[in-house]
């Protein structure tokens, strides 16, 4: 097959591997179609299995006939391979470069991967829109599931089933879709059980410079308002960016045409700006020679923390409108596939305790990111070390995970999962043996036959041993709305991702072990005391025989 042509030298002996916080290993380096493997062929020694798709870029250096390849991964790790022989080194280097940048999705590893674990529940069927709708139906009858997008004709980035107001027919939806960017007409994102308010999301309205309007679009979103109530449109762009969008056919909801809605503009950055921030941040984290002043000014200059603050602030605002103001909300930016999803998904973390469970969080990612059409394939094809010029790459999903981590850190007992689940999702969004994050939309996933040909990440996560591994020992279900602080001093750098390979994790792991131990010991004691209590109660009623009738 094609892979063989790309592999000029399949194996090299005497290669030395250097990794952060691990002893160096000498062994045989092998290249296969999907992996870079280093094995020492000795018992009990580490081996390296690295997916080519996890490699962001490589750097070659030579010292005499000894070549060195620095492999920079999408998960931000850097490893070094010392390869004897210049030719071998060059061959390995060019093979890695070719194999890590394969264009065709069908050549990706998930199509070749066969699970080595028992699939208890097929993850492709774990979070279907119709199942999510059943929960909604139990709370309200104001919404229906529309099949208007059955064949992905109305909107190429929406799933076949979407929740819309019951009183709005499919024809109206089709017309509204024509008035929204990418056909993304307003659909239900979240229903707030406490007061019946909703959050919707969409693409920008296509008002253009001459102020086009669309009665059906107005009818659609007005149908979500209770009589006499008003709603809020949260536009994730600044007013000036939204104004400029008019020139390209886009725009925003004007007061004249949407009198029942008040518009708020926020300033969430997108695409290239975010990618640029990520590159700068990772660069700053990897330079350990900085003085304190230089580190702080580079951290500031990366703007990463500013993005985190802005996204969280906007999500809090949306949650506030719904929970405190008792108003419904429509969120959109330009396409409605990036900043929009950051806001709608984070607002649900704040409002809905169910999203803070392991299953619920997966459901949220499935609903608000995968089904909602975030183009993972495009956004996550390169990470912070890539040398090529970014096209559609942007760390929008990583920023969302970072924001979730900030909330989790502020409410350490309110989440059923730990930071590990977030790190895991970051890794798999960029490179994975599972098909979950392949493709850019529900339509593409169908076209690529992903559910039939690949394994879902959720199939792997939802096994008892993995759930156990991701569980937060401090978790106590908290049914309340949790309001995170968005003050700058409350938002920290996410060390678990950005400093993960720069600091030894041992001490933090020890702390986690100790935490788990304290809690398990307490439970075991409780069990023991309860069982003895029962035993004693039994004995005490038996011993003095028949004292009372």
């Amino acid at each position: 097959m094609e892979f063989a042509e790309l592999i000029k030298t399949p194996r090299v002996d005497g290669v030395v591997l250097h990794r952060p916080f691990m002893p160096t290993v000498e062994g045989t380096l092998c290249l296969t179609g999907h992996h870079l493997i280093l094995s020492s062929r000795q018992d009990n020694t580490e081996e390296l299995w690295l997916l080519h798709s996890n490699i962001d870029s490589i750097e070659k250096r030579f010292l005499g006939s000894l070549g060195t390849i620095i492999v920079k991964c999408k998960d931000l790790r850097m490893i070094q391979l010392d390869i004897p022989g210049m030719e071998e080194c060059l061959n390995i280097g060019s093979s890695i470069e070719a194999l890590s940048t394969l264009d065709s999705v069908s050549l990706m590893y998930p199509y070749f991967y066969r699970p080595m674990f028992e699939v208890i529940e097929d993850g492709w069927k774990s979070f279907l829109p119709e199942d999510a709708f059943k929960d909604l139906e139990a709370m309200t009858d104001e919404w229906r599931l529309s099949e208007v997008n059955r064949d992905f004709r109305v909107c190429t980035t929406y799933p076949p089933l979407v929740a819309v107001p019951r009183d709005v027919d499919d024809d109206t939806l089709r017309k509204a879709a024509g008035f929204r960017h990418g056909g993304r007409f307003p659909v239900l994102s979240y229903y707030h059980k406490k007061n019946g308010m909703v959050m919707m999301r969409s693409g920008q309205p296509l008002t253009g410079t001459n102020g086009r309007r669309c009665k059906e679009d107005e009818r659609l979103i007005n149908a979500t308002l209770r009589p006499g109530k008003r709603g809020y449109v949260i536009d994730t762009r600044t007013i000036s960016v939204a104004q400029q969008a008019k020139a390209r056919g886009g725009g925003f909801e004007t007061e004249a045409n949407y009198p029942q809605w008040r518009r708020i503009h926020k300033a969430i950055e997108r695409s290239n700006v975010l990618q640029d921030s990520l590159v700068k941040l990772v660069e700053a984290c990897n330079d350990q020679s900085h003085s304190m002043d230089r580190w702080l000014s580079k951290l500031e200059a990366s703007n990463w923390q500013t993005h985190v603050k802005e996204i969280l602030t906007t999500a809090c605002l949306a949650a506030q409108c719904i929970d405190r103001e008792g108003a419904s909300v429509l969120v959109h930016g330009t396409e409605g596939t990036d900043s929009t999803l950051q806001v709608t998904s984070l607002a649900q973390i704040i409002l809905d305790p169910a999203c803070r469970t392991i299953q619920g969080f997966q459901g949220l990612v499935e609903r608000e990111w995968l089904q909602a059409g975030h183009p993972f394939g495009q956004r996550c094809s390169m990470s912070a070390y890539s040398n090529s010029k970014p096209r559609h790459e942007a760390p929008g999903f990583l920023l969302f995970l970072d924001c979730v981590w900030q909330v989790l850190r502020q409410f350490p007992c309110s989440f059923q999962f730990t930071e590990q689940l977030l790190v895991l999702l970051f890794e798999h969004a960029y490179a994975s043996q599972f098909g979950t994050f392949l493709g850019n939309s529900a339509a593409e996933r169908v076209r690529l036959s992903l559910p039939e040909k690949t394994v879902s990440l959720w199939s792997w996560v939802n096994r008892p041993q993995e759930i156990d591994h991701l569980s937060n020992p401090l978790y106590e279900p908290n049914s309340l709305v949790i309001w995170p602080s968005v003050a700058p001093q409350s938002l920290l750098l996410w060390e678990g991702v950005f400093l993960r390979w720069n600091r030894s994790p041992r001490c933090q792991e020890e702390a986690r072990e100790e935490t788990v131990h304290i809690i398990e010991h307490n439970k075991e004691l409780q069990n023991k005391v309860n069982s003895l209590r029962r035993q004693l109660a039994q004995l005490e009623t038996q011993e003095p025989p028949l004292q009372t009738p």
Partner: protein
Amino acid sequence: MEHIRTPKVEQVRLLQRRAGQRKPLLGTLYLSATHTIFVENHPETRRETWVLHSMVSGLERPPGGPTGSQLVLRCKDFRVFHLLFPLERDCVDVHASLTRLSRPESYSELYCLSINPNTNQEEREKSWSLVLPSQDYQRMGLPNNLWVATAANSEYKMCDSYPAQLFVSRWASPAVLMGSSRFRSRGRLPVLSYFHQDTLAAMCRCSQPLSGFSGRSEEDEQMVTAVMKANPGSDFIYVVDTRPRLNAMANRAAGKGYESEDHYGNIKLHFSGIDNIHVMRSSQQRILDVGEQRTPSMSDFLLGLENSGWLKHIKAVLDAGVFIAKAIADEGVSVLVHCSDGWDRTAQACSVASVLLEPYYRTMKGLMVLIEKDWVSFGHKFSHRYGHLDGDPREVSPVLDQFLEVLWQLAQQFPCAFQFNERFLLDLRTLAYSCQEGTFLGNSEKERRSLRLQERSFSVWSRLWREREKYWNPLYRAEQSQTQGVLRPNTTPYCFKMWKGLYSPAETPAPPAQMPVDLLSSVREGSQQLEQELANQQERLAALTGEPISYQKVEVPKRKINQSQLRYSGPDPPTTYSYPITSPAQDHGSSHHAAEPANQKTRRPAAGLSLPLEPPGSGKGRDPDDLSSDLESGVADLSVGDEVIGGQNGEEAGLSSE
């Protein structure tokens, strides 16, 4: 009492914004001889706020409005109270009274000397014997054949800012001691601070030599050689001058300076670059301003943090400690530490190094002893630095704050290494400033002795020790690896964070019960009670069945978590290929592939336990339908003002959660 013009004012409003309070409380203000007390009118809560006069650092009277006259009360623990008086006259009176009361002119006005300690003489005497430097010298195995006690300073004649009890090298004769003392600033000659029993290397401290550009003293050079001789494993010592090199050089013009490597043949000089007390004072003011910004942007905050220079200074102090600890533990070389006078930066560097070197100093008692020895007995000028009396504001500087913050930064890296928690550090800091006990009063041992403090007041340590329950770190375990041996912190700049607990306490959204430290502490307490109950049950069981008591200890094996390694190797290898090497993932049970069921065994929980945890009993506010009370979730009153919603400019639509 003669300073109190108005002992009681009614209908006063109090607002404490830094504690996250948004609406002022209405109540009555009382002035006592020692405290300002505010009692809320609200009949149900009647919340009381007590502010010790010695904690007041500043009073301001901003121009009043139509609703009354304002008084702003700033405290040394960075609390800020805004008081609103209906009548201007009351405001003026309270301002005048507090101005006088918060600036006592003599020690006898201080709280710790205003209470009558003779009510419980036995307890008082016990309180002073809880923590003694002599215990620590004993613990280090002193005196021994290298280091001996000297009586040269028993009457504070050689050096009035040193303790009476000093340990010096056995090779230093009385004449050498005297000569060296004469050649050192304020007579602070090189004496022992810490002795490392494994390497026999020692940490000594002193002040700068009076060398000027070329001055030298034979005795002082002999003294330094004597320090070196007391370490049989090394033929040189490090002299750590904790000042920036330039400052040290500038001091030569004033007839002071540092040791020349030419004159002292067996030393290696090292400068640590810690700035002086004046730089630190203004730096702390700047980081405080950063914490007090009303709605800063992320850039404002990060640039403010950078411009304050505070974390840079904290890093310099830790770096100095790391250098000393490495020299002693890794190289086995003795170190002589000094700055200018040897009572500020020297105290910091020595005690940081001690904490890194010695697990004992990471316990609650150990830290108390360390502060008693390195700070209190060696003449750190507590009363000057923490402004106990009305005096020169240029003497005030957050020297101890920085040491405590270094400990906090270390605890971030080593969460299980310290027996005490953050609250201990914060309370310790407050006690140093408020001087409610005699321990920190005065500027030297000599001064404290002449004040007969042990007869007139209590020791701070017994107070902290009495309340030790609230200071435990639940994660501390004596047997853990980070508890043992030398701590080797990472001092890359990104390892330092702003100490929110001190500089921005309001920004903690989760209620205390939701913080891991408090939660784990209460779980551990619960476990202790359960163990007690278990023992009782077993006794009763034995009584009922007639069988001998069989005490069973409940042991849960600790699970190893090694996430980084487990997930290090990326996705699990495929089975559809055959590789040139034997398929390692299937052959080795101990391989490290994340998706491998085999290695999951290592982190299976004990039998009968499965996570996720079940919700423990339905506690208050945990009813899923009770969504009305989410005020408890932390941020109160996030009301969206009309000016926020609908604001055309996205920038100003910031959330009001600051």
